[in-house]
């Protein structure tokens, strides 16, 4: 019996080349005669371009060409938005090089093409752009009032208003009734600060226009979608474009986008007829890559006196930034279905207004809408518990879906297939030592200890496995949500798996090898996974939204199933038995009730040699499959944080962090652990550290890692992680998705913990990130306003 691969903590196949520096990032690419690009960017957040003088730059040594918006106006088109959330959605044109108006600081106004990166950079300073400054609107709530317009040719900053009402949708009761009859009503405003995805590898693009088919290498999460959008926008035949995502050093949603620089590099390369490379600097990455979160949530929670939630009303403002990115408009909508989280309350309404400001445009960032939703409901559950004087865990228990109630159709109309919140919570409590920490908290309060202790709780669920194509269609998203795979059987019986997912740190090469090794009974080492090149993997919808295993992995399994079906026919022929009598186990085909068998490799070779095949049998075992999920999967978990707050300085420290996640069946526990750790770090970063801050003129103040504080290992505690395993019933493996779990749950757990530590001192809320200065200011304010209510 071979050891099952699924469930083994295999070290990742990908790592050896990455950690020994033999990586192939886009910037490592050097082509003969390659030219280099540098961008001239607007220093102003909103201005008319009155003139651009490129003459000095053009005569600078090594400069081959300088492109302005006017030069490419005829061909550049507008970067598309593929998710019109309403039929009336408004969006300004989004040219890759601004033509006459810039709407955020960092927008490209010209591009230098030169023989070396240094020559290109030198010439940037020689481009003389004259601007007429226009008023800027930076604050989201102010933008919503339309007093200042982010674009002079739009008559409102409002892009779209999207509404979900459970009464109207027929998925629940009307919210008005719930609010009117509420025995307890909790009203709050939460600010989801703007975050920067801050992936490690800056974005980089190389375009080779020298053959019939143009090749683009890009540090992207979405090579397939990118090719389609480039073709549609620039009017090129799709077949003339090949897009390759080589090693990609992180994305977190920040590379789930098409960017002006991809268009510019392609246009420049075609113009000069030579390979061109553009690699952004870290500052450019922080300034002009898309940002995430940036929402204001006005929330009302209705409940009975004994703690049964009866309704939730959300007024959401979502900052689109200056333009609509490909899916920026849809990010808040992804969250809209998750505000009800693990709870079963009957009435829900969300009204989301997408609003333009003069800042970098926004898009997906790890969790994409779902962290914001989870934050709101989990903060509210704590607020309600405080209001009612109940234990926050007891309150959650009263409202969550019990395990015997699955499948459960929620107030947003989603069917949760499975889950066991009781089990995950019980395990978390046991690992945490909840009662002991509560006792210590009481002692510290009693002693008026300068360091106070708080316990933060967050449960979560999220919709993963993006996405059933018909659901995306119903939400007006332009594409489907299926995934494709091919399993190629080589003559020796070795396997090549071609996947349409596009890993950039997730370890698909390892995990897909494990899936196929089990399925076909071949050694893990004999499976090669190919991806990230539209010429190798023709069909795919790439990697984001914790979709790759639950959707792409299922396509791999389905393709492997087809291989087995084909091979059975040949094996039967080889052993002169009937197909029905062939069994396949451990990599061997055997004839039922006999000791006759033939190995997978022998069948593979027989297919290759094709000397003796059944009539009509094509001489190969290769198989394709495209999997379109019928439903989402719903991972869930319970996170507990013990937070220490130094009341003298406002410094917050995580003393203990316990999370129990239920991500369904696990293919590789080591990869899952890694995903959870990274996710926690990013969620904690939102709670305590990160915020994109602009000055009054709209310049990004946190424009380098000196000011944009990304936590590193010494800032994070030793995480206690554990899992429960309730298989998903929506796919053959029972997998759910883990990419975003840690990010979604940790932010509210941390903030709830900070508040729990200082609420008795009169602090009611602290904006994220909960910096020492803010915590201290909140404590000071509580002192002057009289403290405990």
């Amino acid at each position, binding site marked *: 019996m071979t050891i099952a691969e699924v469930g083994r903590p295999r070290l990742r196949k990908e790592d050896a080349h990455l950690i020994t520096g033999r990586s192939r990032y886009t910037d490592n690419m050097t082509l003969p005669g390659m030219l280099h690009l540098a961008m001239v960017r607007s220093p102003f957040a909103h201005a008319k371009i009155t003139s651009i003088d490129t003459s000095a730059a053009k005569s600078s040594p090594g400069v081959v060409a300088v492109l302005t918006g006017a030069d490419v106006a005829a061909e550049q088109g507008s970067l598309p938005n593929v998710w019109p959330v309403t039929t009336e959605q408004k969006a300004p044109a989004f040219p890759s090089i601004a033509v006459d108006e810039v709407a955020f600081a960092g927008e490209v106004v010209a591009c230098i093409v030169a023989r070396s990166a240094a020559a290109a*950079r*030198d010439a940037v300073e020689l481009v003389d752009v004259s601007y007429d400054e226009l008023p800027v609107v930076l604050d989201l709530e102010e933008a919503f009032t339309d007093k200042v317009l982010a674009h002079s040719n739009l008559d409102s900053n409002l892009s779209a208003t999207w509404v979900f009402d459970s009464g109207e949708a027929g998925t629940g009761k009307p919210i008005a009734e719930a609010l009117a009859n509420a025995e307890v009503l909790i009203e709050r405003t939460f600010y989801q600060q703007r975050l920067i995805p801050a992936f490690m590898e800056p974005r980089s693009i190389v375009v080779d226009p020298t053959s019939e088919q143009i090749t683009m290498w890009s540090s992207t999460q979405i090579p397939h979608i990118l090719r389609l959008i480039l073709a549609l926008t620039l009017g090129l035949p799709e077949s003339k474009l090949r897009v390759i995502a080589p090693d990609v050093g992180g994305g977190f949603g920040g590379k789930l986008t098409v960017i002006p620089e991809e268009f510019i590099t392609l246009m420049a390369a075609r113009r000069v007829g030579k390979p061109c490379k553009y690699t952004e600097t*870290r500052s450019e990455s922080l300034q002009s890559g898309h940002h995430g979160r940036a929402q204001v949530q006005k929330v009302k929670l209705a409940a009975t006196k004994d703690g049964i939630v009866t309704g939730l009303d959300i007024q959401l403002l979502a900052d689109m930034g200056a333009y609509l990115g490909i899916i920026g408009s849809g990010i808040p909508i992804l969250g809209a279905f998750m505000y009800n989280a693990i709870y079963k309350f009957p009435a829900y309404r969300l009204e989301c207004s997408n609003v333009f400001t003069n800042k970098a445009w926004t898009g997906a960032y790890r969790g994409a809408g779902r962290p914001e939703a989870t934050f709101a409901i989990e903060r509210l559950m704590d607020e309600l518990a405080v209001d009612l004087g109940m234990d926050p865990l007891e309150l959650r228990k009263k409202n969550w879906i019990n395990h015997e109630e699955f499948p459960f159709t929620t107030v947003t109309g989603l069917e949760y297939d499975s889950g066991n919140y009781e089990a995950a919570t019980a395990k978390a409590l046991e690992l945490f030592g909840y009662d002991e920490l509560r006792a210590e908290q009481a002692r510290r309060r009693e002693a008026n200890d300068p360091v106070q202790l708080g316990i933060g709780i967050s449960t979560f669920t999220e919709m993963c496995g993006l996405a059933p194509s018909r659901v995306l269609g119903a939400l007006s998203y332009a594409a489907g949500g299926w995934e494709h795979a091919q399993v190629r059987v080589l003559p020796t019986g070795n396997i090549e798996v071609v996947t349409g997912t596009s890993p950039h740190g997730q370890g698909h090469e390892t995990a897909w090898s494990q899936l196929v090794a089990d399925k076909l009974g071949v050694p893990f080492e004999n499976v090669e996974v190919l991806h990230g090149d539209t010429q190798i993997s023709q069909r795919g919808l790439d990697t984001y939204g914790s979709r790759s295993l639950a959707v792409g992995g299922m396509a791999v399994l389905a393709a492997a199933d087809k291989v087995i079906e084909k091979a059975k026919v040949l094996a039967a022929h080889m052993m002169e038995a009937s197909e029905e009598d062939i069994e396949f186990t451990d990599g061997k085909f055997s004839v039922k009730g006999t000791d006759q068998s033939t190995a997978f490799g022998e069948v593979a070779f027989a297919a290759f040699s094709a000397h003796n095949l059944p009539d009509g049998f094509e001489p190969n075992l290769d198989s394709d499959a495209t999997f379109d999920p019928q439903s989402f999967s719903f991972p869930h978990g319970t996170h507990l944080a013990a937070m220490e707050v130094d009341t003298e*300085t406002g410094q917050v420290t995580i003393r203990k962090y316990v999370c129990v996640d239920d991500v369904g069946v696990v293919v590789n526990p080591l990869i899952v652990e890694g995903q959870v750790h990274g996710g926690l770090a990013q969620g904690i970063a939102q709670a305590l550290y990160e915020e994109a801050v602009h000055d009054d003129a709209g310049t990004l103040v946190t424009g380098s890692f000196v000011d944009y504080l990304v936590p*590193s290992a*010494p*800032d994070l505690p030793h995480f206690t992680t554990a899992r429960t395993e309730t298989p998903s019933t929506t796919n053959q493996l029972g997998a759910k998705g883990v990419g975003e779990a840690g990010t979604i749950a940790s932010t509210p757990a941390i903030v709830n913990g900070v508040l729990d530590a200082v609420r008795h001192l009169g602090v009611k809320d602290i904006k994220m990130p909960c*910096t*020492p200065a803010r915590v*201290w200011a909140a404590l000071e304010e509580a002192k002057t306003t009289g403290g405990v209510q």
Partner: protein
Amino acid sequence: MIPSAFDYAAPATVAEALGVLADAGDDVKLLAGGQSLIPVMKLRLADPAMVVDLGRIGELSGVRDDGDALLIGAMTTHHEIVTDPLIAEHVPLLAMAAATVADPQVRHRGTFGGALVHADPAGDMPAPVLAADATFILAGLDGERRVAAADFFQGYFTTAVDDGEILTHIRVPKYTGWGARYEKFTRVAQQWSIVAVAAMVRVEGGTIAEARIGLTNMASTPLRATAVEQALVGAPLTREAIATASAHAGEGTDPASDLNGDAAYRRHLAEVLTKRAVIVAAGL
């Protein structure tokens, strides 16, 4: 992140370096560890026509015993300050502060002299050096001059080093037997000081006999917390007495307001951190 083009020289002696400096004119920069200069050049916030690398001048590195003081070469790295036995014995405060600078890579490249001449208000080395009353030895074509720490730091990124001069050594008096503590406050582990306090305390017979307190990032230059120092002299070795004295830490300061906190918060931090630093330095 590509700097403008520049000429480069790497002289082998201080005398040679002074000659190169004199010939190069105004638009020249000395390069020590490069941990501050190279980043600003890459961002093109500085674009010197010439860079003179001090890295090959052996006489500028190392720590020597010089009687009642230690003589520290300007090119001595942060890492060497952290691990040097003479410093550990006589001015451990310097090692404590240097240990909080950035990460191992930066500490292996960045230098004591470079950090002092760079004079970033949030930099960690100036306040301990000021608290220790060090003397700066500057070499010029006309010979050597000595500048007291109190006169060396003149403003935001500005020191007494003139064009054409090289900081060769820093003479730091010995504080053998004193208690020391560098209390640095940051939001993440690898960050410049939001506020930091450098404290040295000599305890005698149950009271504080002498105290030297330097403040980091409480003005455009490092400051001495003289009011605290005075209040501590003769104070009993109790937390309460130290807290009372530390309440003067904000006096005479002029801190900036930025993303990490406003001036009021920084003054408050200075008090809390002074209290904490002195408590540890006094061995409580």
